[in-house]
C-alpha cells in the first residue's frame, strides 16, 4: 500500500531525512521509534504533504501513485490520515461542522452519498462512544481548550469517522493517562482491518503492548538504523537508544 523508497527530504533548506525505505502492505501495522529530533514527525509531514517539506531524492508511492504530485487534501481523500503530534487549535471553526464537511468531501470523492446532519450525528456518536468522549467536546471549536489527552483522543476519533486506508499516528500515545491509553489503543485496534495500514510513531513500548505491530523501525538522524519484529521495541525499551551505536553497522530496512 505504501512504498517509501530511498526518501530524502529537506525542511526549510535543511536536510532531515537521509534515505528511508519502508514498505507497508494493507492490513499491516508498523511502528517507528527513535530519539527526539530523529525525523519521525518530518516523515509524517512528508507523507501528509506539508508545504516546505521537500522531497530531494527517492519517492513515496501510495497504492502505486506518486505522493509528491498530490495536494494534502487529495492525499486525504485518497485515504491518508495523519494524527498530529500537536493537533492545531482552530478558534471559531466548529469541530462538528468541520468534520462533517471533511467526511462528506471524502465520501463524495469516493462516489458515496453525502451524510445529512442527522446521519452524521449518529455516526459521530457511535465513534465518540468508542473513544469514551463527550459530545460537547466536538461541538466546540476544533481542539480549542482541549487538554493534551483530549486532543490526542480527538485525533483518533476523527480517524474513526474518516476511516482512512493509511493512518499515520504521530505520538498519539504521548500525554495520555493509563486509562486513556487503553481506550485509545482499543480505538486503534477496532480500526485495524485487512484493508487498512497503520504507521505508528511512538517513544514507548506501552502502546505497542496493546496495538501489536507487525514491524518496528528505528529512526536515527534521518535514517532507518534497525528494523525488526515487535521484540525490537521491547529491546529498545530495555536498553535505550544507546544500543543503536553498536547496531548502526548492520542497519537494515
Amino acid at each position, binding site marked *: 500500500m505504501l512504498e517509501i523508497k530511498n526518501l530524502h527530504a529537506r525542511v526549510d533548506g535543511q536536510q532531515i531525512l537521509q534515505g528511508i525505505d519502508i514498505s507497508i502492505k494493507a492490513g499491516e501495522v508498523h511502528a517507528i521509534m527513535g530519539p527526539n529530533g530523529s525525523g519521525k514527525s518530518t516523515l509524517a509531514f512528508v507523507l501528509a504533504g506539508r508545504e516546505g517539506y521537500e522531497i530531494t531524492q527517492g519517492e513515496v508511492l501510495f497504492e502505486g501513485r506518486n505522493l509528491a504530485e498530490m495536494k*494534502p*487534501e487529495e492525499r486525504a481523500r485518497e485515504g491518508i490520515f495523519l494524527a498530529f503530534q500537536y*493537533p492545531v487549535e*482552530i478558534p*471559531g*471553526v466548529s469541530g462538528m461542522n*468541520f468534520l*462533517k*464537511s*471533511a467526511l462528506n468531501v471524502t465520501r463524495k470523492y469516493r462516489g458515496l452519498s453525502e451524510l445529512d446532519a442527522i446521519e452524521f450525528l449518529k455516526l459521530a456518536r457511535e465513534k465518540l462512544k468508542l473513544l469514551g468522549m463527550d459530545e460537547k467536546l466536538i461541538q466546540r471549536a476544533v481542539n480549542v481548550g482541549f487538554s493534551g489527552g483530549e486532543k490526542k483522543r480527538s485525533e483518533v476519533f476523527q480517524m474513526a469517522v474518516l476511516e482512512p486506508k493509511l493512518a499515520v499516528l504521530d505520538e498519539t500515545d504521548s500525554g495520555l493517562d493509563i486509562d486513556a491509553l487503553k481506550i485509545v489503543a482499543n480505538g486503534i485496534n477496532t480500526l485495524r482491518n485487512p484493508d487498512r495500514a497503520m504507521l505508528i510513531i511512538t517513544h514507548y513500548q506501552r502502546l505497542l503492548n496493546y496495538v501489536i505491530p507487525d514491524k518496528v523501525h528505528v529512526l536515527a538522524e534521518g535514517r532507518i538504523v534497525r528494523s525488526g519484529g515487535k521484540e525490537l521495541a521491547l529491546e529498545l525499551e530495555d536498553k535505550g537508544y544507546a544500543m543503536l551505536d553498536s547496531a548502526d553497522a548492520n542497519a537494515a530496512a
Partner: protein
Amino acid sequence: MTTEQTPGAPYLAQFAQVKAKLPGRRLSWLKDLRQGAIERFVSLGFPTLKIEEWKYTSLSPLTKTVFGPASQEANGRAEEGLRRFLLGEQPCHRLVFVNGRHRPDLSHVGSLPAGVTITSLAAMLEAEPELLEPHFGGEDQSDGQALVALNTAFMADGAVVKLAQGAALEAPVHLIFLATTQGGPAAHHPRNLILAEPGSSAAIFESYGGVGTESYWTNVVTQVKAGRNAAIRHYKLQCEGAEAFHIAITQADLESGSSYTSFVMSMGGRLSRNEIAARLNGTGVDCRLNGVYLARDRQHMDTSTRIEHAKPGGLSREVYKGVIDGEAHAVFHGKIVVCPDAQKTDAHQLNENLLLSERARIDTKPELEIHADDVKCSHGANAGELDSEALFYLRTRGLEEERARSLLIEAFVAEMIDGVETEAVRSNLRKFVSSWLPTVANGKGAA
C-alpha cells in the same frame, strides 16, 4: 469667494439649481440652514490628506467626478436589487429609499407601540417640521464636517425614527438605501434621525446597496440622540456597488445611563468611509462600537471612530476586525478622548486585521487623548496572515485549500457577527459574509 478652481465649486452651482425643489423649501429656517451649509462646504472644501483623520484616505477619485442629482425616474431595478437585503420571515419595520427618496410602495411599517414614529424625513418636513428644527444646525466637530455640510445643503430624504419616553420597539427598524440610477454619476445625501427619548429602546439596521456597475455617491449622515437610560442598537451593512463611493457619518449623542451599541459591516464600494463620532455626554454611558470590514480587489475602506468621554463613569468598548485581500487598502483610525471631567472612564479599543495577500494593506492608528487621571484606557492593533498550520490541518482532513481558507476567514469574523444581538440582523449579516468568501464555508452549501 473665488471657488472656480476647487472641486467643491460645481456643487455650489448645483445647489443654486436644485434648492427650490428640495423638501421643506417653504421653511425659512431650513432655507437658511441649507444656504449656510453650502457656504460652509465651499469654504472648507473636500477633506484632504492634510487633515489628520483623513491622512490615509484620499478623496481624489471622488472629487475628480462631479456627481449630479439622482434621477427619480423609475427603472424597475429596485425590486430585484432589494431582495438580498430583506430580513426574510422575521418581522421588521422597513423603510426603503431608492436613489435617495422614500419609496412607500416598497416599504412596510407594522403596527407601532404608542409614542413611536417611523417616517421619512421628507414627510416629516411636510407634516411636523417644528419637531425637526431643534435637531439641525448644532455645532459640528466631526472630522468629515465638510461632507456633513454638503449633506445638510442637499438632504432630500432619509428616515426619522422617534421614540417617546419609555417606548420599547420590539421588531427592528430596517432602513434600506438602494441606488439604481443609470446614465451618469449621481449623488444621494440621505439624512437619518434617530431620536430616542429617556428610557426608550429600539434596534435600527441600515443597509446600503447598489444595482449595476454605475458610479454613484452615497453621502449619508445619521444622527442618533439617546436620552437618559435609552438603549439603542444600531447596525449597518455597507454593500454598495463596485464603483460606488460611500461616505457615512454617524453622530451619536448619548445621555446619562444610556447604552449605544453599533455594529458596522463594510464590504462594498470602490471607496468608502464609515465615520462614527460618539459623545458620552452624561454619566454611566455604555458605548460599544464594533465592526467588520471585508476588502478585496482595489477597494479602499476607511473606518474612523471617535469616542468622547465627557462625563464620569462611562464605558466604551470597541472591536473592529478586517479582512483584506487583493490590492485593497483598509484604514482604521480610532480616537478616544477622555475629558477632564470624565473620571472612572473605562475604555478599550481593539483592531485586528487579516491580510490575505501580499499587496493588501492596512493602516491602523489608535489615538488616545486623556485629560483625566483616574481612568482605564487601553488599545491594541494587529495584522497577520491566515494561520498556515491551521490551513494545513484542515487540508489533511480532505478540505480543499479554498474551502479551508474560507473556513478560517469566516471563523475570524464569526465571533464579531455572533455578537450581533438582533437575530434577524445577525443571520442577514452571516449570509453576506458567506457570499464574500471564496467558497461557501461550513458545509451549508455543499451538504
